[in-house]
């Protein structure tokens, strides 16, 4: 799906003036953005920018202090509504798997947790193993896996119940190049399968290469939203890369943020 198609499509998720504070610390400060159905949307920002907090609000792990969310046009309150949570899948920044269970058993458990059983669960497990490229390691314990393999399985578990929207929090952080490529392919494959993806990263090249649209976030505020070239234009640097755009928008380089 091309960016223009994505923009034309009805938004799947609309976030309006989202605000969240941890005690005194304002982590997300009035974020407003919308993600179209089928889009691969990137939330780009340095560490501590508020990416994870935004994702946790959408995943329903925390309740926003202010602002509203809509999903497919209807009010969306995942923190209190299980039905709303069922529509999304979340891939936490940390590996959230049982090391003592095998890959298959992890998929099996989290599938059950999402209400899958019987043949649909078996099919979802096979699809998950394929997505993670772990079909031949299905019966090995996760603790014996490399970091990259765990990341891939972490992603597959989040996608297990085929959610309409998949949230990924820095899925490529600290991953070796080979596994990173595998994850890129997985994300693109999921988008090709019609899945909507919201993913965070602090790698600019990665965002530029993968995302249909990108939102730049810093210190809890969304600074700009658009395709990579739109962002460059907004920053008054047509044709420039995201690195330069970020520098222009925040006054500092992403690397030393």
């Amino acid at each position: 799906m091309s960016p223009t198609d994505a923009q034309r499509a009805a938004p799947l998720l609309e976030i309006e003036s989202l605000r969240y504070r941890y005690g005194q610390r304002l982590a997300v400060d009035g974020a407003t953005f919308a993600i179209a159905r089928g889009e691969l949307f990137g939330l780009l920002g340095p560490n501590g920018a508020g990416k994870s907090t935004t994702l946790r609000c959408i995943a329903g792990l925390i309740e926003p202090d202010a602002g509203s969310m809509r999903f497919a046009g209807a009010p969306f309150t995942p923190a209190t509504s299980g039905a709303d949570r069922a529509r999304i899948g979340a891939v936490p920044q940390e590996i959230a798997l049982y090391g003592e269970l095998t890959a298959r058993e992890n998929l099996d458990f989290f599938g059950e947790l999402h209400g899958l059983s019987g043949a649909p669960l078996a099919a979802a497990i096979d699809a998950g193993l394929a997505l993670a490229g772990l079909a031949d390691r299905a019966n090995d314990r996760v603790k014996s896996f490399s970091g990259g393999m765990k990341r891939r399985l972490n992603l597959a578990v989040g996608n297990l119940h085929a959610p309409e929207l998949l949230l990924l929090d820095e899925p490529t952080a600290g991953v070796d190049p080979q596994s990173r490529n595998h994850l890129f392919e997985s994300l693109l494959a999921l988008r090709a399968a019609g899945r909507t993806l919201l993913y965070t990263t602090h790698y600019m090249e990665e965002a530029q290469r993968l995302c249909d649209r990108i939102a730049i976030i810093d210190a809890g505020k969304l600074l700009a939203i658009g395709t990579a070239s739109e962002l460059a234009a907004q920053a008054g640097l047509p044709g420039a890369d995201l690195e330069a755009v970020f520098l222009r928008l925040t006054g500092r380089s992403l690397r030393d943020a």
Partner: protein
Amino acid sequence: MSTLTTALAMARKDLRLYFRDRTGMALGFLLPIVLVVIFGFVMKVVNGGDSGPSRATLWVVDQDGSEASRAFVAALRSAETLRVRPAADEPAVDEARMRRDLADGELHHALLLPAGFGATVAKRELPELRMLRDPDRTLEQQLIAIGMMQAAIAALGPDFAEAFTTRMLERAGLPKEWRERTTALARGFAGGVRRLFEEKEAQASAKAPAAGSAEGVSVAAEPASPSLDPADFLGQLVPVVNEEFRPPERPRQLTFMLSHSVSGIGVMMLMFGLMACATQLIREREEGVLPRLLGAPSERAALLWGKYLFALLIGALQLALLFAVGGFVFEVDFLRDPVAFLVASFVILLAITSFGMLIAAWARTSKQAEGLSTLLILVMSAVGGAWFPLQAFDPPAAVQVAMRCTLTDWAIRTYQALFWHGHGLRDGDVQTNLAVLLGFTVAATVAARALFERRYVRAA
């Protein structure tokens, strides 16, 4: 997405993890059994050895009503190891009631001072007492023997020193042909005893008469019967005819100490086992799985209920194994009343599980939870009588209150009511115990649920 489905999925996953960890499983199942068996054997052999400062309850029926019998009862009351009932301000009881209550297992020792007691004492002869007793309460028997010895010496006094000594030497197995020598020995002995009483009056701190302080002891010591039980020997200064009462249907092999140690150690190990199950919740939080669990579409509390289910299943397995092995090794039938056993075990499991969940929901780290739970379990086991059957004695009021503050005490009392007293679910005490345990379960669960919301759902 139903709460039950999620809870079941959680429990299934936890069981899988549990049985995967061989060492953990060995600790969870083998250790309790090993401990129960060891404690059981030790208790069977030792049968309570050191009685400490405890008192045993002794019911007394004065059928004589003479001055001498009243003096004897008063002496019993002041014996350090006895709690005499009826108390001085309680109405007297009769033999018929004692027999009834003994047969019911309501009480365990009743001493009858028969009519003619005063007349016999006046003739400077030793009166014969009758004891109605439950023969398996061996631990209390020692305390009662000591108390009666104290009372006999105190009430009958130095005038009976010779009679006591003669009786003791005879009971020690001196042959009849030694009558002359025995009597001579007794005189010497009596002199020693007399001196001892005088010293006692002077110091007011002396304990039981020490045979070693009398002359001619070496003569008496040689032919002493090797099977002599010192407590019984000393205790029976006054001849007592024992009449034994066993509560109906009590399993033959089941001594009080044995059933106590199986249920006491069992309850303690169950606490450790279930605590390990409950604190797994904390480890899931620490290992970062929690966000994913909370992302499940069901009600969040389902995660907590799943953990409850898991702990209950493991606990049930542990208990079943514990009582099966305990029953097999000690040839004891714990399943005399299977319905009562199952109901009581289920309620005890619920209470202990909710205690574990409360700790798991409260603690911020698994170290906190392990530290606190170990401390609480050990304290509750000691105070609640899991190691030593405090319940069998009448500890001071403060200790009683402390005991009643432990889960262990209520659980042990419940099991003892079933195993030892042979009560069923209709029994008032059993019902009270179960009601208290259920009340605790509800309170702890409500608290655990609230803490879970704060420490898990909101802290994600």
